[in-house]
């Protein structure tokens, strides 16, 4: 009992040896008891996204779904792996803290809205979904294109159906033709301010693996990225889950309209250094989610300077570049990089068709990089997340129809603008102000004056009342790690104009008692 001897020194005076041996023993047993209790608690909500399961025999493994976020690897082995073979089958430590996210309001709200979805005629008392950043406003345009160009889409003009062209192994990082089409689309979306080179593109099955692959390529386990808050809740999964990489928050404040300040970046960088964390890069979202603001050209230049100074990478998540509305100019990171600039090797852009083309189901993500080594590594990693070939073929035809693309982008922007203005106005009538934003599908609204206590608890309470009494699902700022309580994200692109007054009525119902 080596631990006793130094403790003996602490417990001086009467009963030194006895207390010196009892106290550490007691502490040890309490620790075991505490941990054992957590191990034995069954996790009720493994899958907050799923409909209620059949009550068939639940496997004994569900008892292993624990929440031990601060576990170190060696400790996890002791806890999850019994010494004798007849105990429950051990799985990885990763599993335990991955499941932790299931309880967050973000997922609970999603599943509630799914179980009881609002429908004007069939279910007028259902939950109205304002928690998903999806765009349904312009899907009809895509559908019409498909209806008119059906056969060409899969077969290619005038050709016969070539099964081998879609069924066989294709390059994991995407068909060259598709890369060319995507490069052209990205240019169009950014109003031809930039020309994208198809050979600098690596395609992935959605933007989710694009971010993860870049995290694997740019950082080692234990390293960190700086990420301005509030940020997209999915980064927790994409950047951290399997990579072992950390996220360091860079708080943005309402006083700055949640714009990124280099001073805040610097402070966070130093904080990380003090904690002994090596920062490898910065992840920005432009347009940002959940706020919807755009990074100015000036900020982007300052960001590049900062990255140069601290020797960091920049990942610019530009997945909403085509979903801007309003008059502010969108500037891509690609625009401010000179072709001969040595610092271009720091810059990587992620993109996808889930937002700008409303095709999240088709799983199309993009890594665009100026760094050949990163491209080479990312290319090899796409074998785990490659885009389905028939989907690529279908979209090649669509994206090459530049006239359709232009019409779509313009119409979509108009519709987004209209909804944004209407929702914003509706909220303002109730005294809820939102940050003036130029991109994305949401209003970032300040309800800090309406929460019972100026804290995360107060915020979650209001979220709960909005969901359960008002039957409206919104995203509380704490899910996005917003440093100021009381901010909420209201997504408007899954609604129709008729829904807006209904939403306002419901919110009003919830707010009345507080006022």
């Amino acid at each position, binding site marked *: 009992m080596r631990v006793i001897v130094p403790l003996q020194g602490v417990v001086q005076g009467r009963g030194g040896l006895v207390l010196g041996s009892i106290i550490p023993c007691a502490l040890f047993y309490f620790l075991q008891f505490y941990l054992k209790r957590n191990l034995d608690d069954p996790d009720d909500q493994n899958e907050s996204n799923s409909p209620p399961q059949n009550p068939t025999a639940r496997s004994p493994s569900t008892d292993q779904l624990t929440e031990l976020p601060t576990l170190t690897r060696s400790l996890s082995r002791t806890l999850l792996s019994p010494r004798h073979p007849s105990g429950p089958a051990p*799985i990885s430590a990763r599993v335990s803290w991955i499941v932790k996210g299931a309880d967050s309001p973000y997922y609970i709200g999603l599943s509630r809205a799914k179980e009881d979805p609002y429908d004007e005629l069939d279910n007028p008392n259902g939950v109205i979904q304002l928690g998903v950043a999806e765009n349904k406003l312009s899907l009809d345009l895509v559908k019409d294109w498909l*209806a008119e160009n059906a056969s060409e889409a899969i077969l290619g003009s005038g050709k016969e159906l070539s*099964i081998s062209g879609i*069924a066989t192994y294709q390059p994991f990082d995407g068909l060259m033709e598709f890369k060319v089409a995507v490069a052209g689309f990205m240019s169009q979306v950014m109003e031809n301010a930039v020309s994208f080179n198809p050979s600098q593109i690596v395609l992935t099955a959605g933007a989710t693996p694009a971010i993860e692959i870049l995290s694997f390529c740019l950082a080692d386990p234990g390293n960190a990225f700086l990420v301005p808050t509030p940020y997209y809740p999915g980064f927790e999964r994409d950047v951290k889950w*399997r990579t072992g990489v950390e996220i360091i928050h860079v708080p943005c404040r309402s006083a700055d309209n949640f714009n990124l300040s280099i001073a805040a970046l610097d402070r966070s960088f130093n904080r990380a250094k003090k904690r002994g964390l090596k920062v490898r890069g910065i992840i920005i979202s432009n347009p940002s989610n959940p706020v919807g603001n755009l990074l100015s050209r000036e900020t982007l230049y300052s960001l590049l300077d900062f990255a140069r100074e601290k020797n*960091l990478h920049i990942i610019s998540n530009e997945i909403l570049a085509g979903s801007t509305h309003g008059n502010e100019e969108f500037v891509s990171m690609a625009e401010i990089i000179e072709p001969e600039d040595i610092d271009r090797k720091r810059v990587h852009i992620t993109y996808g068709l889930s937002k700008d083309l409303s095709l*999240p189901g088709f*799983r199309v993500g993009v890594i665009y990089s100026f760094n050949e080594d990163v491209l080479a590594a990312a290319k090899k990693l796409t074998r785990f997340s490659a885009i389905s*070939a*028939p989907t690529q073929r279908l979209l090649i035809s669509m994206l090459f129809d530049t006239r359709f693309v232009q019409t779509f982008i313009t119409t979509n922007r108009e519709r987004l603008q209209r909804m944004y203005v209407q929702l914003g106005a509706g909220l303002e009538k109730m005294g809820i102000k939102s940050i003036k934003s130029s991109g994305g599908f949401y209003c970032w609204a300040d309800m800090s004056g309406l929460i019972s206590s100026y804290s995360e608890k107060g915020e979650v309470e209001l979220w709960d009342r909005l969901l359960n009494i008002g039957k409206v699902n919104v995203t509380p700022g704490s899910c996005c790690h917003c440093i100021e309580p009381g901010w909420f994200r209201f997504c408007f692109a899954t609604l129709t104009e008729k829904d807006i007054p209904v939403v306002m009525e419901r919110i009003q119902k919830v707010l009345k008692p507080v006022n």
Partner: protein
Amino acid sequence: MVAISKIATGNGHGENSPYFDGWKAYETNPFHPTDRPDGVIQMGLAENQLCFNFVKKWVIEHPEASLCSAQGVNKFKETALFQDYHGMPEFRQAVAKFMGKVRGDRVKFEPDRVVMSGGATGAHEMVAFCLADPGEAFLVPTPYYPGFDRDLRWRTGVELVPVVCESSNDFKITRNALETAYEKAKEANLRVKGLLITNPSNPLGTILDRETLTGIVKFINEKNIHLIGDEIYAATVFTEPEFVSISEIIEEVECNRDLIHIVYSLSKDMGFPGFRVGIVYSYNDAVVSCARKMSSFGLVSSQTQHLIASMLSDNDFVDSFIVESKKQLLKRHKYFTWSLSQVGIGSLKSNAGLFIWMDLRKLLKEKTLEAEKDLWRVIINEVKLNVSPGSSFHCNEPGWFRVCFANMDDHTMEVALLRIRTFMLKHNEAMVPQKLCRRSSLKLSLSRRRDGFMSPSIMSPHTPLPPSPLVRART
């Protein structure tokens, strides 16, 4: 200059292994019947192209299954938006049903345990992430698919410990071999978390018999380690003995089901590798739950889910597809192995898979890895065939090669066989005189065979294989 990660700069991708050298040779000079008749023929890719016409017919006759047709486009909106990591219920049901049919409906699969992933590649990696932490290990019987070195280890940090199987007993997985590997791992201070078996086997093309499977299930239960069954070739079993899945064994033998996981895909059985449909089927609720969330990194395109759901719920199509596929594979396999036997090349007796495990041990100058590499270089550069050397599959005995036969049309197959024949002729001529008597009988059989080769239609699955003194029986 700004650095990148160890994963990005390291060799975990495994593309420097000889397995991929042949691919590089093929890519620089690929065979084409008219444009490049002297190019390298790809026999290193386990792809199933034998049933394309069958599938094509179905797709054309069912325009509603495809979103880009007048009949199917009404489903477009909901499909385009569908990104739920649970996957479409119709898709999961269709896949579960298909998996059952492939096993002769002897077992039922629950749709709620079907989890999607980015191909079987993504499925294997996902299972490794769920079951093991960095530094822990899986046991894998050799010879095994080279991709495992990358898929199970690269980003996960998990180790692989080989379970050495010998040609003397046809590479069977013995209890002894399992125990030896387990002990070896222990000695190396590696914690074994699971055993990964591929059944039907890649590269052997054989299936595990009931006895072996039962023994394996008992072993993993005793050691309390997971069993991952890669059954990606389940529907390619083209002749007796019948395929037995782990899912069947656990109904017969006492087993902790939390240890059992199946990796599947449509890439081999249906010939759809381009669709990227990987499946993890686990009997462990925690693993299903975790894998489902992880599947966000490799969800199957909803358009593909929709198409597959339609296709695989067409019972008539599925039943006739399975039968037709087996028929085509059997025909190709029989013809190929028979043709090889005529020039004195034997192979491991197999009844599944898209390849054969060819025995070229007698062609080696000496029983070493170097000699195998030399022979392989000759095959790539002179015979112009990309075959895969046994060493890249971690085979402990040099001289074995995996040759794929289902990824080409009949004409290309003939060209490949002609090249092999020519090579063997040259080789036999170069051999020492005591083999003269064999050579003359070889010449005789060759001239007989020439007729056979010129008119392959004479060959049918029922043609008995003519005995050749050069065929070494591989039981």
